[in-house]
């Protein structure tokens, strides 16, 4: 097992480097470098930068050097000093801005993942056991709709429905009176009242695909000889299903962390923009529009790393659950 863990972590390193290349590439995309935009914005507000200061920052970020050197300085800054660069739009180091937002992104993604699991397990089992029943067809139809409707359209529609029929304010994570209030039970309840819309919106497509996978896997398992043996032994039907086939069919639930997580983080990004949640999405969009590239690049880097870690966790969990994986 230890060897497998080590192998997985070593294999992750090139992917991580690749992701950091992509993030840096995006930082470099807009014409001009970071300093020209700082100087431009400062002279807009009537301040001029001292040439010495310009030279100092140029040397610090290696702006006159070839791209690979700049990349190297950027990445060592992150790894050694936790320095993600400077956001000129906010006038603050990027590292002060991102962690709260990334935390919120992670929290909403986790809540959505829980939602996906909780909803798809019973429905998937039901659909597999009662195949081609009316309930199964209804869930299949919902599943197709869930896969086909893009997140932001679902968010817009729920917003409209919430506004029109429930008179609820649907943006944000808290009602205005709770923003900045100390933590309390009432505040938590308010959070739950706001959280369900983004969680449903973000989780729907993942739920739909997980139901389909669970249904297919469980159907395969149910037709195997050991299930017939269990029935022949006289086990009650619920034990026949719960004891073995379900446990085997549950593997995709664990591997789901790997492939649902990028979807969820993607979904959180765009849904948060529509619903104005305090996660990374709205800030990322704003940074991109303002070409505040160090901030934007850091978000993209961290989101990529987050999904990688998710994939790693799911692989390790799978290996712990299923010995066939770690021995091949």
């Amino acid at each position, binding site marked *: 097992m230890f060897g497998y863990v080590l192998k997985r972590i070593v294999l992750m390193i090139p992917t991580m480097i690749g992701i950091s290349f992509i993030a840096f590439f995006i930082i470099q995309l807009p014409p001009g470098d970071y300093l020209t935009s700082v100087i431009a914005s400062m002279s807009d507000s009537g301040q001029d930068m001292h040439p010495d200061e310009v030279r100092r920052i140029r040397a610090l970020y290696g702006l006159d050097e070839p791209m690979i050197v700049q990349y190297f300085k950027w990445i060592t800054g992150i790894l050694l000093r936790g320095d993600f660069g400077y956001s000129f739009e906010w006038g603050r180091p990027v590292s002060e801005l991102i962690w709260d937002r990334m935390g919120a992104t992670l929290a909403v993604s986790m809540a959505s993942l829980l939602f996906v699991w909780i909803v798809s397990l019973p429905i998937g089992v039901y659909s597999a056991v009662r195949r081609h029943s009316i309930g199964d067809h209804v869930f299949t139809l919902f599943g197709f709709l869930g896969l086909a409707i*893009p997140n932001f359209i679902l968010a817009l529609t729920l917003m409209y429905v919430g506004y029109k029929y429930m008179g609820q304010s649907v943006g944000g994570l808290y009602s205005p009176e709770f923003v900045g209030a100390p933590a309390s039970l009432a505040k938590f309840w308010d959070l739950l009242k706001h959280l369900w819309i983004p969680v449903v919106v973000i989780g729907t497509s993942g739920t739909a695909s997980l139901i389909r996978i669970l249904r297919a896997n469980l159907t395969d398992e149910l037709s195997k000889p050991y299930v017939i043996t269990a029935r022949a032994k006289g086990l009650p039907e619920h034990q026949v299903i719960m004891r073995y086939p379900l446990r085997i069919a549950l593997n995709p639930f664990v591997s789901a962390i790997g492939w649902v997580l990028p979807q969820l983080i993607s979904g959180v990004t765009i849904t948060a923009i529509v619903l104005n949640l305090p996660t990374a999405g709205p800030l990322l969009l704003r940074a991109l529009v303002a070409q505040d590239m160090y901030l*934007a690049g850091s978000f993209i880097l961290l989101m990529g790393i987050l999904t990688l870690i998710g994939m790693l966790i799911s692989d390790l969990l799978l290996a712990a659950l299923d010995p066939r994986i770690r021995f091949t």
Partner: protein
Amino acid sequence: MTLVSHYDDLAEETGPAISPLKPGDDPDKIAVASQWQLIRARFFANKVAVVAGIIVLLFYFVGLFAEFLAPTIPSKAQPRFTYAPPQSLAFFVEDAEGNRRFQLHVKGYAMSVDPESLRRSFTIDPDKIVPVGFFVKGEPYKMWGVFEMERRLLGAINKRDPMNLLGTDSLGRDLLSRVIYGTRVSMSIGLIGVASSLIIGTVLGALSGFYGGWVDLSVQRLIEIISAMPTIPLWLGLAAAIPITWSPLKVYFVITLIVSLLAWTGLAREVRGRFFALKGEDFVTAATLDGSSQRRVIFRHILPSLTSHILAVVTLAIPTMIVAETALSFLGIGLKAPVVSWGVLLQDAQNIRTVATAPWLLIWPCLAVVVSVLSFNFLGDGLRDAADPYGH
């Protein structure tokens, strides 16, 4: 016993378990049917996929003839009718004596002004009748940018009367025309995007699967990196770098490229897997022994036998691209006005106040996106099931 009846008996007992042809069909036909005939038979047996395919074709038809089908030009503002609600088509009018007479028409608008906010709002006025006809003369336009034309499929007979079957937006532009023109842009982005990711995906997948070894390893790493990135943040990052000064056409192509840059991985995986499976087949060995070059083996022998699978994967990739473009434009960093796409239309429905005044601005573009995406998914599922007629 004749030979034919003997054959029939045989088919009764040992025929294929799931036959693409119905039980009553002649088994001789299956025996000699080509791969494509089997695929076609299996595809057409799937009614949902066929209906979905017809809907997809209809969408492309609408996109192709957008100029003629739209009642007016999408940019034509009617300042007199802002946020006007949808009118519905009716067939008969009653005159003063109560006689019913056939006359295709829509009802006109009545305007009221809110005394407090001074905002104008429109309601349908059942007494005003706007006669409507087929092939009427409307705003002049250039069909496909070439032929000068005036006739439109449907329009108000008197050019100055309002006819907005799906309502209007904040500038009084006709939503139906905008959705129809948007169909052209949104649907073609899917098609062009898929073409470019088809090229990248097939080439890399084929190289990876055919040569194996370090080529395979590095392509696999690349795919892993790209699929580990959450797509929307990456799309945002790439699209935001497009300079504002670029022409709409250039932006259109760059957006297509960005969308397809991340979509080729699924295709490459599929092609690679098939290549691994086919590499050891007898016909490939035979071709190699015949002295075919590697290029000939890849393009002449292996790729053609993958065509049906590739077609299925491609069909399933198109909706992703449509959604990607819609999302980017919706966020304001994809296509921008004056280009009209479904995403650009949804941008108008971004804030809840607009949607509350004019829900049709949300409903119709959403419906277009959802119906097209659903149809592509069903069509792609059907193609995928039919792609391997010898399986199962």
